[in-house]
Each structure stands twice: as structure tokens, then as C-alpha cells.
């Protein structure tokens, strides 16, 4: 059991020529990059993800996360996501670079901005949640993280893959950017998807009709839970699209 905070990894070698296909995951497994300065939390999130059939790389800081992604040096050095990271899940409160700052760096990167980023925090602060969502975070999980949280984000991760391809195909149409932005904010975790394993999501048309489902985010289903069930940790930007 490694007690040091870092993770041992070998940077994949850059190869000549572009040899990538986006979302090409030959093993079928999603690869998650988990970022948390707490060793206890890293162990737990690692296990939660592995038991949910995800491949996990866990690092102890935002800096290391950027190093792993290859974003720490020249920003445009990589032309592709050779590590095939499918999701980044990061703690908010970390020394050095916060999860929010990491989120921003990822979203600023042309290569990695499409990767969904989920923020975890022990503090259920609405302003913080809003800020993260506005910066492009896919979801916000209040700690402690449970299996149901991981299940939920995994479900829409798979959905994102397929939406990604749909988006690609329709991109050269009208001003799809605006439409995409609005339903990016609204589509995650609609009730029909969150409880099941990936069933064909193409049948689910991404209409911007808002159906917020706050209870699914908190998933504090155990009795006597101290979690504030009435505080929505997920608040889609509805006002701009109404």
C-alpha cells in the first residue's frame, strides 16, 4: 500500500503521427482521473470507481493531474488525449491548485475541454457549486462520496460519449454552439437515465426543457443522514434558456 501522496506512472511516449480516434475505448472501460489531496479519500474514490468497472488513476494534486494530462508544460504540445481520460473527478479544497483552478485549466485546453469534470466537496456551498457549474463542471458531489454518486456520473459519462458523436455530426450546421451550451447545462442526470445502465440514449432527444432533479445529486438515501436534502447541489442554468 503506497503511503506516499504521488502516484507512479509512466508518461506515455509521444508518437509520430496522429493515431487517435476520439472516444475509441477498445477495452470498453472508462478511465477516470481522480484528484484529491487526502489519502483516505483517494483510497475510497479509487475503490468506488474500480468496483464500478472504471479504470482509475489517482493523484494527490492539481499540479500532478496537469502533469499526467501533459498540460503542465507547453499548452499546445499535445494534439490528442492519448491517455484516453474519460472523466476527471476532483476535490475542490486542495492546497496549491484548487479543484476549481484545475477545472478552469482543463476547460481552457483545446484538447481536454471536452472531458467531463466532476467536483467533490465536503462543503455544500451554493455559491461554490454555481461557480463550478458555470465554469463547465459536469456535476458537483457533496462528500462523502457514495456508490450511488459514482453510478450516476458513470451513467451520464456513457451518455456523453454518444452525445459527443451526435454533436460532432451536427456541428457544421447552424449555430449549434448556443444550443449545445444550453442543453449541456440542463441535460445531466434527468430522472429517466440516472437509475439504469446505459440504454440507447439517442432516443432521448436533448431538448432544453428543464427537468432539474436535485434529489439525485445528493443521494443521501440512508435514514438519519445529516445531509441537507433541501439544498440543491445541482442547479442548472435555467434562466438563460427560458
Amino acid at each position, binding site marked *: *500500500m503506497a*503511503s506516499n501522496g504521488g502516484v507512479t506512472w509512466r508518461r506515455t511516449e509521444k508518437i509520430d503521427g496522429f493515431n487517435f480516434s476520439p472516444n475509441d475505448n477498445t477495452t470498453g472501460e472508462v478511465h477516470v482521473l481522480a484528484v484529491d489531496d*487526502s*489519502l*483516505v*479519500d483517494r*483510497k*475510497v474514490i479509487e*475503490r*468506488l470507481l474500480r*468496483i464500478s468497472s472504471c479504470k482509475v488513476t489517482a493523484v494527490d494534486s492539481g499540479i500532478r493531474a496537469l502533469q499526467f494530462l501533459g498540460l503542465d508544460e507547453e499548452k499546445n504540445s499535445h494534439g490528442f488525449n492519448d491517455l484516453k481520460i474519460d472523466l476527471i473527478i476532483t476535490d475542490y*479544497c486542495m*492546497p496549491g491548485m484548487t479543484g476549481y483552478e484545475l477545472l478552469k485549466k482543463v476547460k481552457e485546453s483545446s484538447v481536454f475541454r471536452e472531458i467531463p469534470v466532476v467536483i467533490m466537496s*465536503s462543503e455544500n456551498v451554493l455559491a461554490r457549486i454555481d461557480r463550478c457549474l458555470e465554469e463547465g463542471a459536469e456535476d458537483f458531489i457533496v*462528500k*462523502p*462520496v*457514495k*456508490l450511488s454518486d459514482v453510478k450516476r456520473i458513470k451513467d451520464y459519462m456513457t451518455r456523453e460519449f454518444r452525445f459527443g458523436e451526435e454533436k460532432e455530426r451536427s456541428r457544421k450546421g447552424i449555430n449549434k454552439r448556443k444550443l449545445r451550451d444550453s442543453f449541456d447545462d440542463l441535460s445531466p442526470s434527468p430522472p429517466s437515465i440516472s437509475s439504469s445502465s446505459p440504454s440507447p440514449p439517442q432516443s432521448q432527444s436533448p431538448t432544453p426543457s428543464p427537468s432539474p432533479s436535485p434529489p439525485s445529486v445528493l443521494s443521501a438515501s*440512508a*435514514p*438519519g*443522514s*445529516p445531509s441537507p436534502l433541501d439544498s440543491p447541489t445541482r442547479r442548472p442554468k435555467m434562466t438563460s434558456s427560458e
Partner: protein
Amino acid sequence: MLGLAADRLRADMNRLLAFLFHQGILDEQFLQLQQLQDESSPNFVSEVVNIYFHESEKLLRSLRSLLMDREFSDYNRMGIHLNQFMGSSSSIGANRIRNVCVAFRAASEQNNRAGCLRALEVLEHEYCFLKNKLHELFQIQQQRVLAAGVRYPMQN
């Protein structure tokens, strides 16, 4: 005979767990950890808990040494330690410890040194208690394995 021993041990374990939950010492997050333990990761709970113990003791020592310093004024730093302690306690389901941390943090935010010292004492006491109880729990679980004569995943 082995069967009876296994039953008795299982009863002991359940009684201890019931006590810990009933007293609010542990909460459902601990159950969540147990659910993550299986044949592929048969010692998951004790591994995580042992990391928690190791880290907690460091944090408690840091808190104690901060507060014992007569010229102490770095409440910020104390707050950082507390947040860490609170976070990891919450992640393993150490509910009562987390609650004491909340009170401790409140005293810290008011720069109330006496209040902090009191909270630290409670924290140290709660931590000792939890550690003893969890060691007891892990011992029972080990004995169950021996009584059964084979390795099997710990189930409630």
C-alpha cells in the same frame, strides 16, 4: 463447535456495530465502506481505517502542538488541519468525530483559544474511543475468519 463459535462472533460483531451506530459514533458512510469490501478487496475497510488512524494522529499532534504554543495565533492553519480531519472522518463514517470538528472549527473561527482547547480534548477522547472500538471490531472479524477455517469476505 466451530459453527457455534462463528455464530457467537457474528453476534458480537453485530452487537458492537449496532452500538456504534446507535450512539452516532459511526454513520451510514461506514456501511458504504463495508459494501465496498469483497473477495477482490477483502481488507478494504481495515486498510482505509488504518490510513485514517495514521493521518488522524498526525493531525491531532499538530493541533495539540499549535494550541500548546503560548504565542499561538495561527487559527488559519488550525482551520486547515481541522478541515482535513473533518473530511477524512466524514469519508469513513466517523460521525461523532466529525461533529466535534465542526464545533472545534466554530471556536477557531471566533479565535476562541479556550474553546479550542476544550474541543481538542473532546476530540482526542472521541478519537481514542473510536480507535479502540474499531480495533475490537477488526479483531472479531479476524477471529471469524479463523473460526471458519477458510477465508471468506466479511459480511454483516
